[in-house]
């Protein structure tokens, strides 16, 4: 009898704890890892990966995006688009304060986009070319006038692309040497507290955040641990509870996930849609020959790479546009692993047996192993390959100056082909000096026209037709050898609830995350 009562009380507690479990618990410290250590935290000046991950909690933009890239309110409460697609009006949240207590107004938005970011944010500057003027009729509304309709315009209001900068701190100062860069001020859920170079970055809760009850966490520590193995050990020994995507080697992921009370998700990268491929140098040299490019494409054993190197975290890329990005077309010409087909194309090509130079990405062991596997795949079908040893600076210089035959890379798609994909394939974007434009030197008028028209097309179904046509043409030309759609799983203790709730994952998701009791 006693046993029965015990049983009932136990189940009650269990049920209640799960019920309670859904109610967010206030407080707690989150220990995360950041790798490499960001060069700076002023998101307006520095937009690299680690900075976005940390400064994403400090700064905010007008909108957020869900996993299907639909815009959600952030600093902007509501937003509307005129029928002709030329004017966009945003109404801002009320009683929003900067971390230093100064109230946030539309003037900050105008200053940020029209003055500050236009000078310091090259990627945004490229998209602002469609914008005619930006006005702030009153404190709470901002109006964007476009010269002509621009399909993906609403996709540009993400914290990394358009962080809102405090006008009262930066207006009239020399942005780069402003001392406040070391103590960034934003409107985000967390405030900057301390940065021990080489050790950790400490953020604390923004008490008067405009969404009451948020954020739930008291403080976040981003620990700097340079060695991949040490990062894995830190997670195992409980010193760290959150491993953002890409911070541990792929070999460790299965082991870490298998641990008890550990969860993982591949979500949170839809906005970026990391897409990896191999540049093929079509400017001069052997890769100008289409048959050789086809041979290389078919020689790539991408299943082995996905399973052995990336432990299944990734999908085979079908073409230039990633499956998580809008207007993706799955049915494109065949580029699957087929050594015999590859040897046929090789025989058809005028490849004279000379050694091709392969440039790996210098971002850790997985990329180095991938280069070695690729070299082996190509030598199996008869193409001699030599890996060029390089470091980050060397890679930048060689890719920017077309000093390679094949070169690994991966780029973000920013949710829309016009923002992230066009820059790689339109012939107007061929220029030495930058590793992010049309590095292969691919020239195809039809593709240029298709991309240009699709960008200014307001109707989505029309855009889909144009992009499908473009994808088929590009895949047939094989200007680059597509590899994988990369998945960077976020690994965390299960009692850290809801860390990834938006399309850019932990970059701005920690606002809604909370810690249940272990």
């Amino acid at each position: 009898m006693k046993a029965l009562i015990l049983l009932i009380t136990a189940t009650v507690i269990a049920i209640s704890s799960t019920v309670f479990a859904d109610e967010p618990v206030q407080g707690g410290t989150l220990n995360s890892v950041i790798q490499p250590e960001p060069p700076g935290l002023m998101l307006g000046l520095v937009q690299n990966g680690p900075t976005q991950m940390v400064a994403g909690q400090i700064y905010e933009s007008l909108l957020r995006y869900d996993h299907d890239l639909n815009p959600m309110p952030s600093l902007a409460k509501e937003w509307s688009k005129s029928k002709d697609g030329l004017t966009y009006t945003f109404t801002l949240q009320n009683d929003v304060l900067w971390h230093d207590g100064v109230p946030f107004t539309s003037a900050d938005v105008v200053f940020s986009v029209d003055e500050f970011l236009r000078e310091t944010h090259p990627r945004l500057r490229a998209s602002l070319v469609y914008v005619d003027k930006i006005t702030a009729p009153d404190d709470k509304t901002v109006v964007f006038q476009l010269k002509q309709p621009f399909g993906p315009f609403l996709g540009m209001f993400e914290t990394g692309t358009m962080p809102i900068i405090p006008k009262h701190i930066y207006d009239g100062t020399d942005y780069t040497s402003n001392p406040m860069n070391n103590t960034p001020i934003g409107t985000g859920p967390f405030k900057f507290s301390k940065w021990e170079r080489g050790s950790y970055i400490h953020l604390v809760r923004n008490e008067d955040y405009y969404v009451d009850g948020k954020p739930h966490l008291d403080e976040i520590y981003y620990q700097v641990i340079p060695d991949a193995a040490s990062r894995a050990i830190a997670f195992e020994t409980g010193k760290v509870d959150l491993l953002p995507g890409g911070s541990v080697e792929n070999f460790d992921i299965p082991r870490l996930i298998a641990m008890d009370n550990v969860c993982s998700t591949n979500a949170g990268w839809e906005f970026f849609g990391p897409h990896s491929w191999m540049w093929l140098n079509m400017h001069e040299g052997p890769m100008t020959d289409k048959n050789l490019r086809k041979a290389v494409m078919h020689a790539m054993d991408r299943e082995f790479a996905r399973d052995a190197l990336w432990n299944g975290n990734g999908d085979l890329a079908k073409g230039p546009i990633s499956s998580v990005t809008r207007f993706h077309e799955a049915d494109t010409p065949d580029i699957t692993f087929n050594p015999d087909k590859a040897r046929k194309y090789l025989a058809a090509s005028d490849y004279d047996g000379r050694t091709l130079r392969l440039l790996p990405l210098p971002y850790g062991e997985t990329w180095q192993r991938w280069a070695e596997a690729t070299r082996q795949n190509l030598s199996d079908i008869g193409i001699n390959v030599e890996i060029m040893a390089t470091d980050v600076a060397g890679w930048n210089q060689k890719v920017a100056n077309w000093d390679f035959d094949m070169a690994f890379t991966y780029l973000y798609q920013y949710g829309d082909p016009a923002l992230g994909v066009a820059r790689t394939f339109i012939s107007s974007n061929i220029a030495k000096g930058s590793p992010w434009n049309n590095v292969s030197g691919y020239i195809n008028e039809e593709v240029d026209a298709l991309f240009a028209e699709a960008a200014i097309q307001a109707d989505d179904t029309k855009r889909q037709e144009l992009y499908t046509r473009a994808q088929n043409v590009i895949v047939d030309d094989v200007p680059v050898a597509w590899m994988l759609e990369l998945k960077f799983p976020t690994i965390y203790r299960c009692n850290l609830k809801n860390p990834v709730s938006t399309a850019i994952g932990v970059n701005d998701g920690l606002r809604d995350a909370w810690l249940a009791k272990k």
Partner: protein
Amino acid sequence: MSDFWFRYCKNRGAVIGLIILVFVIACAIAAPFAFPRSPWSMVQRPFLPPFEMEGLLLGTDALGRNVLSGLFHGARVSLLVGLVSTIVALTIGIPIGACAGYYGNLVDDFLMRFTEFFQTIPSFALAIVLLAIFQPTLGYVILSIAIVSWPPVARLVRAEVLSLRNREFIEAATLSGQSNLRIIWHQILPNALPPIIVLASLMVATAILLESSLSFLGLSDPNVMSWGYMIGAARTVLRTAWWLSFIPGIAIMLTVLALNLIGEGLNDALNPRLRSLEK
């Protein structure tokens, strides 16, 4: 020469060292025959533990490559780098040391300041920068190691030449009309040889350690399978497959140990004769 062997073999450690070294050299030579396929080829699924599959005695690494074949080919690289970089270091160090020791005052001051300057810079850091500057191919790795390891040779040769220079048989050679260069070449260097040989064997050992440290940090030639590379590549999977970095580490340690033991053996075998000279 027979008494040289007799004295050498009296030092048990030296004999063990010699056996190990001969074994490593045999592996290096046998590598292309025992493992014709390149060590880079992926033969099996990754992380196969040692002794589990017949034909793959030490299992496979993170990419499914044969670890044993990597060891054999790695031996070839390590010995090659060790030997050639020592020879290059000797060809830089000996002339500088000999001239500094023989000609003295001004020449000596200048050369010694130059050597001291090179010794002040932390040698490993200098090797890292040199490799960052030159494209890290095998040739540059060897050159960098040689550049950081010649100062001790210069100092040793200078000390030997200084002590030999005021020996009476050198003065007699001067009196018998021989030119300075002839004297250095025929009289001084042959007598300075034993300590140089001993130091050379230790330098090969240090060069192998340096090469493995450099490739561990990823600063070595990526197209070359070396022991250091194997440890570096296996570092990230230390937790899941610790043996992948353990085995090459042991290989390095044994080879370096062997060279050190041989160095001591040479020291005993070559020096007594010289010591009797100074009695």
